[in-house]
């Protein structure tokens, strides 16, 4: 043991409920570079936080709303607010039922752009019973804008939204402290809310956080800056943050091509069509076909725009191999190095999307990439969104977020969601209704079904505090934090404790 005097942490981690679990390394899945691909974001807020006004303001100030649309709004509502703007809620609530009830029912997608970039906004309802819609919107989002009313500060809803966004893999948060004008542009108030939110986000493992004081109604710090009203704030406007945000992509893991279809236009050509779901590929690369395990080399990459020398994550391509191999839809072509996990048993987190919930031991269809197979789902825990703690559960009701065990009839192929969103995500389909009943994220492969004695197995680690902080910040760790005991001690004390165990 070192005796440098630095503080050490002792971490005891339990090994899962019934089985030995192979933990995946938690890797940063997205590239940290700016590009001009559309940024997908989700806006979350409670009913009266002014979400419609914020989105309306974004569309209005970037000129995404045209005059005839505004005229229709004015005609429909016969009213406008005191700034002479149309009622944005009417613009956004596109369905008749929504306009009649004055609430947003379903996730909608909005489009706007600036000189620098274009944006796709998933606009989701604020009501608690619509967790599923938020999960839907968050599934494709790169960034979450969490809206709070400056007068009310953080609500339970804020914690809930932040938790769901984190679970769905979002690692960039903007806290929009709205209606700052109604608290007299009070900097102390803003600072207090921002500080509280920062603590919440850090506890969820999110470190990219920007808090912005704004008045969506007056258009301050949304697209245009707040000017004289908030001289104390010199940070970016919302749009400036969005322009700088990063887009996720699966480039850091190995090559993945889920095969969507086999193209055989003639005897002489056989190509495998799909969208690269991770890494990159070039002619000459050796690849493995899963689940069969056969090996081949890439002969060429065919696209409509001539033959290419390389393809990267996100590219829709046709791959030609150098030999005849048996490949069909649902197979995955992957790099030799860094292959995904294959197995019959996986751990996952999921969001229950339908009224019938998720029933234990029911057989569902699972679709991931182009692969659809039978699966049995055993719920283990559910997340108590009020406390942020996981509690035991045997079934999952609608809107519940749960941890489950998945058991397949045939080999399944996954990466952990944390490492690759495209190959770690799945949906569950009820074979009785054909409806999509859950969205899920793979956390780990269960490499063996252990005996009962495995339940109590724990590991005590003693490690430098800075390393511990790194581990604690990982999403994999955050997801199971409640199972972990942590004590901060000096190196000498840790050494003494371990000596005691060794007897």
């Amino acid at each position, binding site marked *: 043991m070192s005796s440098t005097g630095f503080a050490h942490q002792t971490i005891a981690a339990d090994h899962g409920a019934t089985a030995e679990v192979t933990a995946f390394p938690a890797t940063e899945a997205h590239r940290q570079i700016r590009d001009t691909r559309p940024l997908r974001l989700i806006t979350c807020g409670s009913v009266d936080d002014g979400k419609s006004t914020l989105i309306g303001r974004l569309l209005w100030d970037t000129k995404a709303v045209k005059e005839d649309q505004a005229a229709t709004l004015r005609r429909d509502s016969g009213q406008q607010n005191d700034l002479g703007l149309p009622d944005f809620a009417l613009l956004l609530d596109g369905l008749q*039922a929504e306009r009649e009830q004055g609430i947003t029912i379903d996730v909608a997608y909005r489009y706007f752009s600036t000189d620098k970039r*274009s944006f796709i906004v998933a606009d989701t309802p604020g009501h608690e019973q619509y967790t599923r819609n938020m999960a839907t919107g968050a599934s494709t989002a790169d960034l979450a804008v969490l809206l709070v009313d400056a007068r009310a500060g953080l609500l339970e809803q804020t914690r809930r939204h932040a938790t769901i966004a984190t679970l769905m893999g979002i690692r960039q948060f903007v806290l929009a402290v709205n209606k700052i004008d109604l608290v007299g542009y009070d900097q102390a108030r803003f600072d207090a809310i921002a500080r509280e939110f920062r603590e919440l986000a850090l506890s969820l493992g999110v470190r990219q956080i920007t808090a912005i004081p704004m008045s969506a109604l007056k258009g301050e710090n949304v697209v245009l800056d707040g000017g004289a009203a908030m001289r104390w704030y010199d940070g970016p406007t919302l749009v400036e943050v969005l322009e700088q945000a990063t887009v996720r992509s699966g480039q850091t893991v190995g090559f993945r091509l889920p095969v969507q279809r086999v193209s055989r236009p003639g005897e002489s050509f056989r190509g495998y069509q799909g969208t690269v779901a991770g890494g990159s590929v070039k002619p000459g690369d050796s690849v493995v076909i899963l689940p069969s395990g056969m090996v081949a080399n890439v002969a060429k990459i065919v696209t409509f725009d001539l033959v*290419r020398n390389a393809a990267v994550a996100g590219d829709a391509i046709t791959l030609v191999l150098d030999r005849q191999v048996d490949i069909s839809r649902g197979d995955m072509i992957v790099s030799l190095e860094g292959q995904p996990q294959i197995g019959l048993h996986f751990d996952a987190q999921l969001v229950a*999307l339908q009224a019938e919930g998720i029933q234990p031991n029911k057989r569902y269809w699972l679709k991931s990439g182009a692969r659809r197979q039978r699966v049995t789902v055993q719920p283990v825990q559910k997340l108590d969104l009020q406390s942020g703690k996981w509690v035991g559960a045997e079934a999952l009701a609608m809107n519940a977020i749960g941890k489950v065990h998945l058991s397949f009839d045939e080999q399944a192929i996954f990466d952990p969601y944390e490492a690759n969103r495209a190959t770690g995500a799945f949906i569950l*389909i009820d074979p009785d209704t054909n409806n999509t009943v859950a969205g899920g994220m793979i956390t780990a492969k269960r490499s063996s079904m252990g005996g009962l004695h495995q339940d109590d197995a724990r590991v005590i680690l003693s490690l430098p505090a800075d390393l511990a902080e790194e581990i604690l910040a990982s999403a994999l760790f955050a997801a199971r934090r409640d199972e972990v005991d942590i004590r901060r001690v000096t190196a000498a004390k840790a050494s003494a404790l371990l000596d005691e165990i060794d007897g």
Partner: protein
Amino acid sequence: MQGTAHDTRQAERPSKAPLDPHLKALENEAIHIFREVAAEFERPVMLYSVGKDSSVLLHLARKAFYPGRVPFPLLHVNTGWKFAEMITFRDEMVRQYDLDLVEHINPRGAAENITPFTHGSAFYTDVMKTETLRNALDAGKYDAAFGGARRDEEASRAKERIYSFRTPDHRWDPRNQRPELWNIYNGMIRKGESVRAFPLSNWTEVDIWRYIQAEEIPIVPLYFAKKRPFVERDGMMILAEDKRLELKPGEVLQEDMIRFRTLGCFPLTGAIHSHATTLDDIIAELETATVSERQGRAIDRDQSGSMEKKKREGYF
């Protein structure tokens, strides 16, 4: 050592500039959807309206299945009242790209003399477009139909899924749509049910034009400004090239540089004054436009919530 992927791609496209990453991402997404539907459904069909969105849709379909043929037919729901230039263009595309075209015209139009002039645009659209579409889809036993609808077009479309589930009588229930997460689409249906698939869901009007320009996609010449004869009717400029247009009392034939932002049935589609004779002009015009493209479409304005109502009944 290989160069970066970006460099290589530049080298491969000597004649064209590389597609900007924004359009490339939209293209990739659309191709993915095309392939997924083609693989999962037994009898897909592509709705082909001959307009600019259809031109982009067709181009993407060709890209998705290259080097193979487009593995499904194109369905044109013809009302008999389309612009003549649209039909010429359509037939040229079919010939040039070796496509299978299925054309449907509702016989009720001729039998009962249902025209946009004699009947209101709401009734006319219901019979000649919605009913014809339903009949055509039933006749072909199609279980999936691609459409070129975009979510930025209209408020109810903003809520629609990429795979939009339809009952056996083609109804859309906006309150009971299947959740759609990531890019994983649920294509499971029972016999008689179908899915409308929208590969262009996330495209905006400007994206469409920029892509047409970047990919050099052919479009109907009516999109470009030209001196054309027209009459003003119900606040719209109606093209007067077709001899089926009869002047009402007080209407006068005018001529000016005009073009169309969308193309439908000529008596129901209004032109705009424009000097945009090239794609650059059109994009420049669009960027300063203060009205939406559907402003020229009579059918959207029949009543509040018009589009949602039509969609519930089976319209695209």
